[in-house]
């Protein structure tokens, strides 16, 4: 088996994802601002926001139960744990088995479930509204994501992401089958939904008519909100990492320091491509009405189903 990743490398990659998560958000914000002919905040703004939040005190709703304080901790832990399952600088399964794509989706779903619980805990209508909408969209996205994963997994014979990336190797668009194109198209449709962006959600607003994910964070404050935001940043980069592991090529750079640095640079380049895509989509489309979103997701479903059909038939 090629490119087995030892445990310390896996943990290093996980830490890298957590550290780079806010940078991706900052980059997307900056790109969006430039596309809208604004100067925009610097790419490091999310880090400054986090540092500010972790220095602040906490204000808590009087209706919140004992769960409320632990929700941000558990959400952050589950999201970061999902980061350990994404291959970053190297392909190949980890030397010690951790988890596969299904476990990754499961951990992200756990984080989302706990966020919804936290939103309902304070007994405000905004939290409930956000939770209800998020839990409406999530069951529609998850099967499609799962089918995209299956469409590559059926070819590779495994659902382990490192092994999937190794199976794709360094081949890219020229070697792609029709199924790959369709799967990738489905993934591009789903990406704004999974990262909570336009046209499904709007990360920039706290207006109750438009928000999904932000609505669930309204009652969190101080370090708790910091944990939730860090979890959102991490979730975004983990999702982008999932796409890049499934569809982008991985070159074998070796396991020495230069190899790892080259791998990290290649990963950064792939994430940047996806970040530019997200910024472009956000700047050129309006947010869909909530009840239009299922139709939008249906495009992804059809693409994923066709991709699978092409793989299997």
């Amino acid at each position, binding site marked *: 088996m090629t490119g087995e990743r030892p445990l310390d490398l896996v943990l290093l990659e996980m830490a890298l994802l957590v550290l780079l998560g806010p940078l991706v958000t900052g980059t997307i914000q900056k790109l969006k601002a430039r596309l809208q002919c604004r100067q925009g905040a610097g790419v490091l703004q999310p880090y400054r926001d986090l540092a500010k939040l972790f220095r602040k005190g906490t204000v808590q709703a009087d209706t919140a139960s004992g769960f409320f304080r632990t929700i941000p901790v558990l959400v952050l832990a589950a999201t970061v744990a999902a980061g350990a399952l994404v291959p970053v600088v190297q392909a190949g399964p980890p030397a010690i088995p951790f988890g596969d794509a299904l476990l990754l989706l499961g951990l992200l*779903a756990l984080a989302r479930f706990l966020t919804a619980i936290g939103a309902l805990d304070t007994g405000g209508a905004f939290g409930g509204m956000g939770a209800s909408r998020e839990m409406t969209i999530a069951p529609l996205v998850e099967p499609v994501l799962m089918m995209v994963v299956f469409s590559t997994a059926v070819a590779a014979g495994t659902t382990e992401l490192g092994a999937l990336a190794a199976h794709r190797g360094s081949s890219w668009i020229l070697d792609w089958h029709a199924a790959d194109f369709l799967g990738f198209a489905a993934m591009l449709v789903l990406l704004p939904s999974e990262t909570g962006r336009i046209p499904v959600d709007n990360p920039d607003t706290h207006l109750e008519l438009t928000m999904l994910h932000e609505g669930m964070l309204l009652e969190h404050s101080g370090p708790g909100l*910091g944990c939730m935001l860090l979890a959102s940043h991490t979730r975004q980069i983990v999702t982008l990492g999932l796409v890049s592991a499934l569809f982008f090529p991985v070159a074998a750079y070796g396991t020495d320091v230069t190899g790892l640095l080259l791998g990290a640079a290649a990963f950064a380049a792939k994430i940047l491509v996806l970040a530019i895509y997200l910024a472009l989509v956000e700047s050129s489309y309006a947010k869909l009405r909530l009840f239009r979103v299922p139709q939008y997701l249906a495009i992804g479903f059809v693409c994923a189903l066709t991709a699978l059909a092409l793989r299997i038939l």
Partner: protein
Amino acid sequence: MISLPPDQELLLTGTLLMAACYGAGALSSLLALWSGRLALGTGHLAALAGAVAGLGVSLGVLLGDPGRTLTQPLPDLFPFARLSLAVDGLSAYFLLVISVVAVAAAIYGPAYLRAHSPDAGAARQGAQVFALNAFLGCMVFVCSAGDALTFLLCWEGMTLASYVLVVTDDRDGKNARAGLLYLVMTHGGTALLLVGFLVLTERAGAFDFAALRAAAGGLDGATRTTLFFLALAGFATKAGVVPLHVWLPRAHPAAPSHVSALMSGVMLKAAIYGMLRFGFDLLAPVAGPLPASWGWTVLVAGTISAVLGVLYALQQHDLKRLLAFHSVENIGIILIGVGLAMILWRAEGAGGALATVALTAALLHTVNHAAFKGLLFLGAGSVLCRTHIRNIEELGGLARRMPWTAGLFLLGAIAISALPPLNGFVSEWLTFQALLGGASRFHGAAGLGIVFSAAMLALTGGLAAACFAKAFGVTFLGRARTPQAERATEAPPSMIAGMVWLGALCVALGVAPGYAMRLLDAPTVALLGGPGASAVVTAQGPLVLSTALTLPGTDATAISMTMVAALLIALTAMAWVLRRGAWNAAPRTVPTWTCGMSPTARFDYTATAFAKPLRFVFAALYRPRREVTRETAGTPYVVRRIHYAGEIVDLSETQIYHRVERGISRLSRAIRGRSTGRIYGYIGFVLGALFVALLLFGVGQG
């Protein structure tokens, strides 16, 4: 004294102990003549002893040499049949599932019954104790029956005892109607089973399973398939497979909560046991794979049940009814595994190993569902006995009043939503792996069908999470919406102990599932005759689950729930430090932001509102009916009062049952119109019918 081999001795003592305990428990209902409280205590204690004995027997058989059958003749009660018990790996595994939940129910029961209905008379308490012990005893002997007669007698006993438990707590006549529907539906199912069994026993000339198996060997394909579908329909009625599920969401919530836990968590599994026993053992051809129609029917029925079960659960606001619909869903998930195992069984190449993975997934989900559904029903029972409200819209804010119950219910909710790191995820992961492996084996439409089933399973998981975010959030979080919820207090310790036992199982089976695979060896070997579960799934050590989707030897997908759980704990500790912040100041408490108005319980998001977007998305399946009546004061702009009524109909009820009902009514009206009221007309009709029946019989013989 004749010395028996140790296995035989284990079975003999074990079954004697179980029979004695459950018998003593049933008899202790007589104590109710003296004191109802005493009867409750002794009866449940006896049930606990019986359950522990059951655990002992099943673990003894499961950890022993796989692939053997222990038999034990019973006293001759009937001149025409020899009764016996036969315990193989499959029986022992289901015995384990029953005993695990029975332990929790027996610990939980007495305090629950006293707290829920303190004014209950001694007669009712005696009846409940008697029926509970009879119910448990019959379930145990259904799964360890060695002949058709014992099986059917215990099956019937199980139905009757649970019927008694369903109708004991009748306040408004609703439960009696639910019980009647339950009785009618399950007896319809039993009738089908009876036909299946009688055809086999008539050929075999004996009742024991070994003779039936031998007789089934000579059947032709069409008869074999007909018999299988008869048995399948019979068992599916009991298991609550869509569209035969209509009794389930009515009868299960009507029983006392610990009995609901047993009915949902365990009794449905007796039907799964029956399906496995018929499909893989009694009716299976001597060599070669099962007919393709069997597995595909089970797979399709399972997929439909899983999706429709969770969709209807989503729109329920009665906590126990919601849980009952989730049983329909989980039976569907189990049947997906069973169906896939039937399709892949005895297929060439890696198919055998894949069939083992599919069956392992189904059996693991059986025990997982028993654990988390038991836990959730007990949690719902704790809420019920403190508030006497089942409608979650009228609850709320219970997490601060009942922290233990809330925490354990949340644990069960995470487990049933198939979220890691708990047990529900593990069995669904195995099901997904088996489905993917099956899809890569079958090309063409079959493969696509299997993958579609996998996508539906993913949809089911997501919807279950949405449903339990609703159920937990609206019941336990926010503000109390009624005085009863305001006054609720924590459940008694013995009830919490029963829940902790099941909660601990959910965690253990989720974090270290590899150790449970050892218990699955015996049933998988007994049924499939191929490699055992632990050889296929835990090939890389007990902490790692691995399956090969394609040929053995190529890259296997491996996950380690233990590693992930350890990572989660470490990360939680780190995040906790981060959460404390730089100052670790105590949080300032202020009212929730409600746009400047003073917050009341009416600001809480209701369950109806929470589920509304999904009601719109799946409107084609729900056919929602809503009625809004406005009461205006002269002009349409001044609204005095708005009355809103909404309803979701169960499609199978309106499309199938109501049509059948209308058909029967029409037919009986037509017959009434033709009735003359003259007695010789009827006698002539009876004679004519007899003549035709004899004629048909003669043609059939000839």
